[in-house]
């Protein structure tokens, strides 16, 4: 089951501008775990030291907010996960 992860520019800047990463998994958490396995540098940009998602990280699936419990959010073949960062403002 192929699920793509689309990264925020501040994240893909850390991994030689690889913007879209192919993964497999049935939940957002499983797919992000694969992402982190391949690019461990991203762990500290997405999670706090206690393992929780950073508060300014937003997860979307197919451009819809995946929440609450983002990491348990189910995904299926062809879905697109967006890992984004909040900016202050509005």
């Amino acid at each position, binding site marked *: 089951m192929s699920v793509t992860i*689309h990264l*925020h*520019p*501040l994240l893909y*800047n*850390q991994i030689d501008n690889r*913007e879209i990463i192919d993964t497999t998994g049935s939940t957002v958490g499983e797919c992000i775990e694969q992402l982190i396995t391949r690019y461990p540098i991203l762990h*500290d*940009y997405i999670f*706090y*030291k*206690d393992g929780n998602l*950073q*508060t*300014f990280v*937003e997860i*979307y699936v197919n*451009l*819809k*907010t995946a*929440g*609450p419990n983002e990491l348990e959010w189910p995904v299926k073949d062809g879905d697109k996960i*967006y890992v*984004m*960062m*909040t*900016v*202050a*403002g*509005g």
Partner: protein
Amino acid sequence: MAAQNKPGGYTGKILRVDLTNEKISEEHPDNDTLRKYVGGTALGAKYLYEEVPRDVEWSDPENRIMFFTGPLSGTKIGGTGIFSVISKGPCTNMAGASQANGFFAAYLKFAGFDGIIVQGQAKKWSYIYIHDGTAEIRSAEHLVGKNTWETEDIIKEGLKRQGSVYSIGPAGENLVRFASIAGDHGHVAAHNGLGAVMGSKRLKAVVAERAPGFINVADPDRLSELSKSIYEIGQKAMPTLSSGGTADGYPILYRAGQLPVKNYTTNIFPDFEKFGPNYLRTRFINTPTSCWSCRFGHCRVTEVTEGPYKGYKGEEPEYEGLAAMSSVIGQTDPGATVMLGDMTDKLGIDVNESGYMLGWIMECFEKGLMKKEDLDGLDMRWGNAEAALSMLKKITYREGCGNLFAEGVKRAAERFGGEAAKCAVYTMKGATPRGHDHRGRWAEMIDTCMSNTGTIETGPGVAIIKELGQSPFKDPFDAMEVSTMNAKVSGRRIFEDSIIICFLTSQDFRLEVEALNAATGFDYSIEEALNVGKRAINLLRMFNLRHGLAKSMEAPSERYGSVPVDGPHAGKSIMPHWDALRSNYYMNMGWDPETCKPLPETLEKLSLGHLIPDLNRI
């Protein structure tokens, strides 16, 4: 400065309008000044420091109010219709800098000017009309009492070409301390009451009429490429901005425990989904609107289709307006939120301060700390939208109890006194925070309290910028880590408010610096660009010290710094760390931890060495 020598992106002319003497003149900043201060907030900070001495109060004719563009204004770069308003503001009685988007900066540049400095006080209500390389002071007597939308529409009827009108509403005329400046039907420079400064000068509006032509830049081809890159990066960074607007943040911030609910008394708000785009943008009738050169088009004019305000048409509130007129005041009807948010813009009052004012009054009313007789008979229960509207109008016209509340949350709370005073959300400098619960967002509470402008200054959420050599946050509730990080990233936001660009649609600092170089022909490095922002921060701090800033003012009120009783951050308390984090922030900023003054070496490093003798006089 000879016109042929000026850097690209500038007209090279600043308009000075003396309302007392009805005199209009032009000034030409030299290239060194432009390189050092760029434009927008930083350039305004320079003039504010030089021209507004210690004994000048915000309402004094000798106060200045400045409307400044930057070298990117009016170019192809998206979101460069934005401009910065700089003055001594009424809420903090210190420096104020607030930005509004739309078209004004672009049209002002086309009309021939990089900025406007206004001083004095008009004998009669006036507006400034700028067009074709010249300016006029015109009578605004026929506009007195008109709201901001009416004022804009009436003035535009008399323009030859497209124009941008930024005006005050009745709140600014009546010197409400949190009066705003609104224009382009829905864009607002709201923070620190700069609309009241316009009111004190009897200045109803500033008008820029578009003239034919374009902005000369040093390298137009490179700027075009960068425009495309900035847009593409922005789209990747905010893929839902176009479709969802900033309302997209509402449910996200609720789940993160950062949505302010019922004046910071709780973090539980079951109706939160009704204020996200899935509701607002599917049930209401929406028409997209856009700012200068912006391809995101995330703003909307909206028509309410259900509930008591069915048929109401107005600007869709941005996230902070949504929060202020829903969760903050315990109000659950999105239609009422649209109405209240739109009315704050039209009356000309800051929606954030309005929300915290209404929330404070409602909490006090529910707890019996304020009686109906204190409130001119209004039934200020949580969520009573009609009573909220009536109160906003009382404040706007300073009628009855509204005269007290028109002084802003801090001053009203202090004057009302008793237990009620302990419930108010504000900074000790005198402004209210933006529309978040900062007890779950320590970086922004620290920023809000330490800022020199009356609103945020460093802009948290950008702490991972590679260009700044920062490592990511380990713990957002580690007071020392957060205060250190805030100091390290300071400068970027004010740089953006100086070049000046919309930070929502531009997400890459490196590209912003490249765009500045392509426009001007200068060769700023990342470090020099950051120092533009740091220079402005230190200059504004020196201004504030001269106008009464003390270390004790850099703290939250009792309620603002309280401990959440529920929600994701229940029990987390920032105040036990406050003294230590404040000192740590000062030290990382190069400021004296005891006096909060910049150290001489900090000023020297930022090419502000000429201010060192002033340290002993403030």
